[in-house]
């Protein structure tokens, strides 16, 4: 029912509405206006609220009314007519008569398309009326025609056109009065409401912050415990395993025969792999919990690419693979964590070198690109604005992947062919970490591949933002 609020009477701040005149207009001011009107035009003025409450009354007792009230029939006839005037709620101005031949103008006060009240102008005798109405003399047998005529003579006489002008004038003044009062009323209501809303917002934020702070403290504790446990409990024995197998390999505990040496080397290699896997798992869990700290700096893409290429040159040379670096000039700086962005590129280049056969080539390129964010269509015209970016591409002439697999390669532990882990090594976590790291930087990663022709990964990272 929140949006279908049925009118309950009273001021509705959300619509800035008024239902009754007296909700906003000061009665004293209204009385003053009516009084000055009465003095200026010698015409009685009464203002009623929409529910019929008399708000202002400036009138003078007419002698004809006083005389009529001395008789029973006259009093009754007058009361009936005057009641009809008071009860009238017309939607447009009307003129109502009474037994004396005098008339009243009943004019609705319309504000914002709604009748909030009405005013009654009169009684007055139409200037055009010449004779005493017969019905008046017949109202009661005790009425004396001479006295009736005398009393009627003191009633104000007004031309119809004049009465209309006076009514229009009063309507204009009342409209202005309602408007000004309404504005003043809304202003004060808004002052109060704004302060209250501002306070509510602040209190809510404070309590949310406090709750978040408490929870963070708790999480921080949990996280520290977990990481400490994992790194200590898993890594410590593993380090020993690796260390002792290394020593065995080095012959510190005596010479090994060929078979023993092979076994020990396998333990050593697998130990290293396990250590890498634990490290990757730690990375992944940090990324998934959102506790991986990304500390962006303004980075030069060219420097970054050269740096990564240098690291893999020896490995590439060993496999007789051509490692080609192609950086477009004048690239914008990107805003990224240097350690993490190197991890992204290293992982991709390492894979490329790994899956490219002897004599092939790997290209590491950086080009200017454009990004558009705000994907859900809502307000796209405002939000999906192009942004400068840098696209890092790693292309190889390796074994490639079937197109059906491409959507799954970023899943954790997924490898196109389960056997490749055994054949080529690796944890199956690399690409899923790369994907999450790219996401954490607000970037995108795309892959294109054809079986037997090679694979191309493109990582697009946005330009560094200026200022804080």
């Amino acid at each position: 029912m929140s949006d279908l609020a049925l009118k309950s009477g009273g001021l509705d701040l959300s619509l800035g509405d008024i239902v009754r005149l007296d909700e906003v207009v000061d009665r004293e001011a209204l009385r003053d206006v009516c009084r000055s009107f009465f003095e200026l035009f010698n015409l009685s003025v009464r203002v009623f609220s929409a529910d019929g409450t008399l708000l202002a009354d400036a009138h003078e007792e007419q002698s004809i009314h006083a005389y009529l009230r001395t008789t029973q029939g006259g009093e009754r006839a007058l009361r009936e007519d005057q009641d009809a005037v008071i009860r009238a709620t017309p939607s447009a101005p009307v003129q109502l008569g009474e037994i004396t031949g005098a008339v009243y103008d009943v004019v609705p006060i319309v504000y914002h398309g709604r009748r909030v009240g009405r005013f009654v102008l009169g009684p007055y005798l139409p200037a055009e009326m010449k004779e005493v109405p017969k019905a008046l003399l017949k109202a009661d047998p005790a009425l004396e025609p001479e006295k009736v005529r005398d009393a009627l003579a003191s009633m104000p006489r007004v031309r119809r056109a004049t009465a209309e002008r006076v009514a229009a004038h009063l309507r204009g003044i009342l409209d202005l009065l309602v408007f000004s009062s309404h504005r003043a009323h809304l202003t004060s209501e808004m002052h109060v409401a704004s302060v209250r809303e501002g306070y509510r917002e602040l209190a809510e934020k404070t309590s949310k912050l406090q709750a978040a702070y408490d929870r963070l403290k708790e999480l921080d504790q949990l996280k520290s415990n977990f990481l400490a446990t994992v790194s200590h409990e898993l890594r410590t024995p593993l380090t020993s395993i690796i260390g002792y197998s290394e020593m065995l390999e080095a012959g510190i505990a005596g010479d090994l025969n060929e078979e023993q040496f092979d076994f020990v080397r396998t333990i050593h290699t697998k130990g290293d792999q396990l250590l890498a896997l634990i490290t990757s798992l730690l990375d992944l869990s940090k990324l998934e919990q959102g506790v991986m700290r990304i500390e962006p700096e303004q980075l030069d893409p060219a420097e970054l690419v050269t740096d990564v290429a240098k690291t893999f040159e020896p490995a590439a040379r060993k496999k007789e693979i051509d490692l080609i670096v192609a950086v477009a000039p004048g690239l914008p700086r990107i805003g990224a964590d240097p350690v993490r962005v190197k991890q992204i590129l290293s992982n991709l280049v390492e894979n490329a070198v790994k899956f490219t056969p002897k004599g092939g080539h790997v290209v590491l390129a950086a080009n200017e690109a454009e990004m558009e964010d705000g994907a859900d269509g809502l307000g796209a015209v405002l939000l999906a604005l192009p942004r400068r970016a840098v696209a890092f591409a790693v292309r190889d002439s390796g074994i490639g992947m079937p197109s059906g697999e491409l959507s799954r390669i970023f899943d954790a532990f997924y490898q196109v062919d389960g056997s490749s882990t055994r054949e080529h090594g690796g944890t199956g976590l690399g690409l899923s970490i790369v994907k999450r790291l790219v996401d954490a930087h607000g970037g995108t990663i795309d892959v294109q591949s054809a079986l037997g022709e090679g694979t191309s990964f493109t990582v697009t990272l946005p330009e560094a933002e200026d200022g804080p």
Partner: protein
Amino acid sequence: MQIDFKAREITVKLVYYGPALSGKTTNLQAIHKLVAADTAGRLMTLETRDDRTLFFDLLPLTFAGSGGIQVRFKLFTVPGQVIHNATRRLVLQGADGTAFIADSQIAETRANQQAFLNMQENLKENAIDPVTHPLVIQFNKRDLPGVRTDEELDRLAQKGREPVYKAVALRGTGVIETFLGLTDLTWRHLEAKHQLKEKFGLDPDVFLADVRERLGLCGEAAQ
């Protein structure tokens, strides 16, 4: 929306939202100037400082529907300045439709985005779903230098769902079109929700054509 069955009166609240100085008040002033006095009431400006709205502006428009139904549109603006967020949220309360007035100047892109996101947030705070809420977007100040080209706007507009209007509110261009677009969207939304045709015999097509006819001439006159 407010329905008064006894008085046969429907009140619809439309809010003009947008960043500071994008021309929300100017839109209302233009409508007030262009629409006949028997339809538009007095434009109320609540508290301003240096020409900046502090609370809101309010323009009432009244249309008589068929069968003696009074349809009242209340047009509100919000204060655009960032610090008046509490007031913006209050004004947005119970809004039936919103016109987002964006500044076309490229330099104002970020201000537009921030105001739009702020609007979505405030709609949610008021328990209004921004996804289904009737919304039109107006790119105002098309006559200034350093604005996005029409082609670019059209291309970007196609990515979104909401109707996009171009305007020069100071000259009254595009203002009536924006209002009519918003009214159309809002009324059809309300019809689907409250079956006004069934309850009041108010046919949406007939009523909207009526509103268009009453205001359409004003729009043409401004061109």
